[in-house]
């Protein structure tokens, strides 16, 4: 008997199943208006819990020691924290290094004057559907996403600061 192809109905069913499995595995990126996922992570000073940050404008930044643009973003985030901290602005930089020692080395070189949390397992970036490094998500007082940004270039600073100021202005009106 010659080797023959399986009948097309079964083949199509199989194809659909395999492709569906592939799509189901890919995490979806977070969008403006979504409720930001909750997280509790280790930090240098105790834990960082997203629940305690409610009521503030939170700038969630995903970074790693091997990420070159992250080095540029740190001084800027220091500046933003110093400038807008009093108005209820909080930077939470979530490190995704597999080894925390790498992150510690980075932090010695480029000190952070804001909250730094560690997520070596990568659960939080998965929940946020991070597609690029660094990635920033501005979360409003109600816990909803106000702004999503991928990457970090010098030219992005103006737009990002504008988004922060807009978020803080919204906070004042409430």
């Amino acid at each position, binding site marked *: 008997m010659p080797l*023959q192809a*399986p009948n097309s109905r*079964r*083949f199509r069913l199989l194809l659909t199943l*395999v492709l569906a499995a592939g799509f189901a595995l890919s995490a979806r990126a977070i969008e403006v208006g979504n409720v930001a996922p909750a997280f509790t992570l280790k930090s240098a000073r105790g834990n960082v819990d997203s629940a305690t940050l409610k009521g503030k404008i939170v700038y969630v930044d995903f970074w790693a020691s091997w990420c070159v643009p992250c080095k540029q973003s740190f001084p800027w985030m220091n500046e933003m924290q110093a400038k807008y901290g009093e108005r209820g602005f909080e930077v939470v930089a979530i490190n*995704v290094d597999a080894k925390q020692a790498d992150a510690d080395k980075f932090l010695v070189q480029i000190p952070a004057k804001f909250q730094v949390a560690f997520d070596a397992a*990568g659960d939080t*970036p*998965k929940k946020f559907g991070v*597609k690029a490094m660094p990635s920033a998500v501005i979360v409003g007082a109600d816990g909803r996403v106000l702004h999503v940004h991928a990457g970090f270039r010098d030219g992005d600073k103006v737009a990002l600061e504008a988004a922060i100021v807009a978020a803080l202005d919204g906070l004042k009106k409430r």
Partner: protein
Amino acid sequence: MKRLSIHLLWLSTVALTLSGCAMQPPQAWEKGNFARKEMTMDADALDQAFTQHVYFSKESASGGTGVGGGGCGCN
């Protein structure tokens, strides 16, 4: 029986081939190892310069590694 086993062989071949493509690539936060210096194409700058010199002097080839130009014979 024989027909059934051929069918099974076909199905498993197709399933294996397709699931190979369905593998998830590393996520953005999992690329720490790719960012290491050893992973660059020209990890050793001296070695790279030497190779380029050989290509240039023996084959009059220049460019193609991020530098403009080609084998025009004018240099």
